[in-house]
């Protein structure tokens, strides 16, 4: 949070064609906001330290796990994100119908608990309905 605030502040100060001290300029307000963000980041840090200390003390007594900030992706989430990115990559090449069909069938296979027959029926129906609604009724040009 502090790094993000500092980067925004730096960008506001060094912004071309604007003087950061001029309230009528385009960089004054972003600079003020970045300072407020910085203050909020420092407050959050202090509060988190205090909470972590209290949790640590409590965990030593109750032997429970302490909650820590996480940047880790859950395995299912990670693989599903890859499936979505794969869909987005093939979308312009295969056209909406084929890409969406592959995406839905693949997604339900990956997520399990749905029989292959059900999977195919749901996927085909969904793609057909969406195609009709978007393309034919709303005239949206699908990829």
């Amino acid at each position: 949070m502090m790094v993000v605030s500092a980067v925004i502040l730096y960008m506001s100060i060094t912004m071309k064609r604007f003087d950061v001290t001029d309230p009528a300029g385009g960089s004054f307000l972003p600079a003020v906001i970045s300072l407020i963000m910085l203050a909020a980041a420092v407050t959050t840090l202090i509060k988190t330290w205090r909470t972590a200390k209290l949790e640590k003390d409590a965990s030593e007594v109750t032997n429970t796990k302490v909650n820590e900030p996480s940047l880790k992706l859950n395995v299912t989430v990670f693989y599903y994100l890859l499936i979505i990115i794969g869909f987005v990559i093939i979308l312009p090449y295969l056209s909406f119908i084929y890409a969406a069909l592959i995406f839905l069938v693949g997604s339900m296979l990956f997520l399990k608990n749905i029989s292959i027959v059900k999977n195919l029926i749901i996927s085909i129906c969904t793609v057909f309905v969406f195609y009709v609604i978007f393309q034919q009724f709303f005239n949206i040009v699908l990829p």
Partner: protein
Amino acid sequence: MENVLSFLIPFYNLELLLLVALGTIAGIFIGAIPGLSVTMAVALLLSLTYTWEVLPALALMVGVYIGGVFGGSRAAILMNMPGSPASIATSFDGYPMSQRGEAGIALSLTTIYSVVGGIIGVIVLALAAPLVSQMALLFAQRDYFLIAILGLLLVGSLSKGMLSKGIFIAGLGVIIGVVGMDPMTGAPRFTFGSLQLMTGVNFVVAVLGLFGLSEVLYQMRELHKKGNVVNVRGLFIPPIAMFLKFLPLSIRTGVLGVLIGALPGAGGEIAALISYDHAKRSTKNPTHPFGEGAHEGVIAPESGNNAAIGGAMIPMLTLGIPGDAVTAIFIGALFIHGLQPGPLLMTNTPDLFWVIVGSSLLANIFLLIFGLLVVSIFVKVVTIPKQVLLPIVALITIVGAFAINNSMTNVYWVIGFGIVGYFMKVNNFSVGPLVLGIILGPMIDVSFRRAFMEAGNSLSNFFLSYFTSPISLVLLVAFLFTVLSQTKAYETLKGKVLARKS
């Protein structure tokens, strides 16, 4: 009087009646589908009705507008994915209600009180349009700045847990909101030299990513976890005592909604958030704590955002100023049909104004009928396995992002916002303040700079200007009170006063 009676035309003209009905039901479903915005639907309708007569075209668009704003709450309640920005506040308590097995009650309550709010909006539109529009005309740039800041102060209500995290995220939202070409000088800001960023970050894309894709990813973590079985009730009609209990709140938030809706730029989303905040502050004993499924938490934003429709139409029809994105498209529709929105519209074609009023009232009646009848259809959505629902939602989100301007770039943005939103949720950051910042950022930026220039480029004159007009003074007092009400000192004082009273 003859003109006033024109408002009955949609009630007896079969074509208009059917178009309003079709528009309302279509709007409810479009609004309910995350990724399909009411703005997009009305914009598409504008192209489809290009060759139509003006009255049928407007009747259909009014139906879609009113149905669409309402429909957004269906997905907010059932899936925690607001179908429209105006339904963000509804998800705070609507989704916990759904998880508690009260999806049917939440859907019915929001329907009934949406109609209450909607009718308040129509009444104000019909009776007080000139007065409210004149008041909005008196607002100076400093007042718009304060209104936007007041909206941003809602982070106190929106941030779940730590307020400082909410302030940080709201600030980040404001920065994202001002990315692109500076509207006053044309110079680039936070664009990293990218030409694509010159047009700014599309708000719809941010909402799709933060509320759509991030929710899909977040729910993947608990895919195999068995949730509580939702107690599904098809049609729930609240008893008279229950209806009357919440009526004063819905009237108050309806009036708030219509006033906010009348302000240019402040649409249904801000009306809903301020209404939610009002309910939170004014309700001493909610049915459940706010954020955990309070009935008041779904009633207030829904009556507020539906009332805002009537409010948004006031400056649109009387001054030619759009109250929100949808009314901006309406203005385009009026131009296409050779009409001049503004003060002359009511003088030259008063029957048109009254037909719009009549269509709005009729759409609210259809809203009540369809909203209550299709409850069971919407409730069935939550019984669909996540393994089926989540890929479909992901597909709609991506196609919805593409459909904004037929560009894959928006799809990449949605994925980016989806990942950011996922990590925010995992680390207990609320995405609400970020969206609020993105909405209000440009308004804060431009109104502050214009107000500063109006005050002769002097900060002292800028601050003193708040004491020169009664409107500015009232807004300043409201601002100071809102700031004070979020401090610990105020909470302590309030606790002492309440203790003394009891």
